[in-house]
């Protein structure tokens, strides 16, 4: 069984696209549809190795979810990589300050994403 990665995005296509790239690289994938679902999955799914998370989502944004996860508790050290259309430096800094480990601007390059995931879950 491979390392488990949670993919949080309100787009079905993006979740499947990222999931397929991860599965092809030997990772197991769990999906969440927004920040609320993401936070619940982080709390309930055992043995997550990292999270890949969109920023702009309904109900709770990726950065709000990140802040909640990093606020304390057993999952505060879980690596969270943001995957988003956003490229604004101010937002990137906000995510970095909130504890994100990295930032990818969509569309992602599969080899770069997998390389980053392997490094972050090593």
């Amino acid at each position: 069984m491979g390392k488990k990665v949670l993919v949080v995005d309100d787009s079905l296509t993006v979740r499947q696209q990222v999931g397929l790239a991860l599965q092809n690289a030997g990772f197991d994938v769990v999906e969440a549809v927004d920040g609320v679902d993401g936070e619940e999955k982080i709390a309930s799914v055992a043995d997550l190795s990292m999270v890949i998370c969109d920023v702009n989502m309904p109900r709770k944004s990726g950065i709000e979810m990140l802040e909640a996860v990093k606020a304390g508790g057993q999952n505060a050290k879980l690596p969270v990589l943001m995957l988003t259309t956003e490229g604004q430096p101010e937002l990137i800094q906000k995510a970095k300050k909130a504890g994100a480990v990295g930032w990818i601007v969509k569309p992602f390059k599969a080899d770069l994403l997998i390389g980053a995931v392997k490094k972050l879950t090593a």
Partner: protein
Amino acid sequence: MNTPLVSSAAPGRVTRQPPDQGSLEILAELVTPITSELFGNNGLPLVFDGRDEPEESAQEMVGIIGFTGTEMTGNLMISTSRDIVERSNPLPTEQGIAGEVALRDWVGELSNQLLGRLKNKLLRYGATLEMSPPVTLYGVRVHCVIPRSPDAKPFVFSSSSGDRVLIWFDALFEPGFKLDADAEGEACQEEGDLLLF
């Protein structure tokens, strides 16, 4: 001269107004290559045919995404055929309902990525946008009508099969605001960039 829109709820108060000609030209210079690049990156080269409402513009799938900001509000729409959406989809289309759901999601994601790219470019011109989640319409003959801005003619692209992609960018600007080609706005990360902190 742009005619400001006067709010009937607050007579005498000037509300947001259509973009000036200079800003429209900047928007046109941004939307065209961004659209070509987005669809090209997804394996579907498009040719830009110009800006006008085609005689026959009824499409099958529409992705709509709204935006707000201090300087402007509005929405962006992608209107096209089911075939274009399927051919640009990075994933194979499943049969049945699952496939249809996936295509509707993809046209919404296309509008999200298109506006995202535009948003990043507009930072350099002094404009900041916040995006809403996309909405998808799916029908037999979906006509898009832009009631607000008289200059909001769609950008028309065509594929090798002759199918059209219509992009509407409908914005209203804060009075006095113009996209500034000389603004020293922020430079954004480019699409595909990976930053590890």
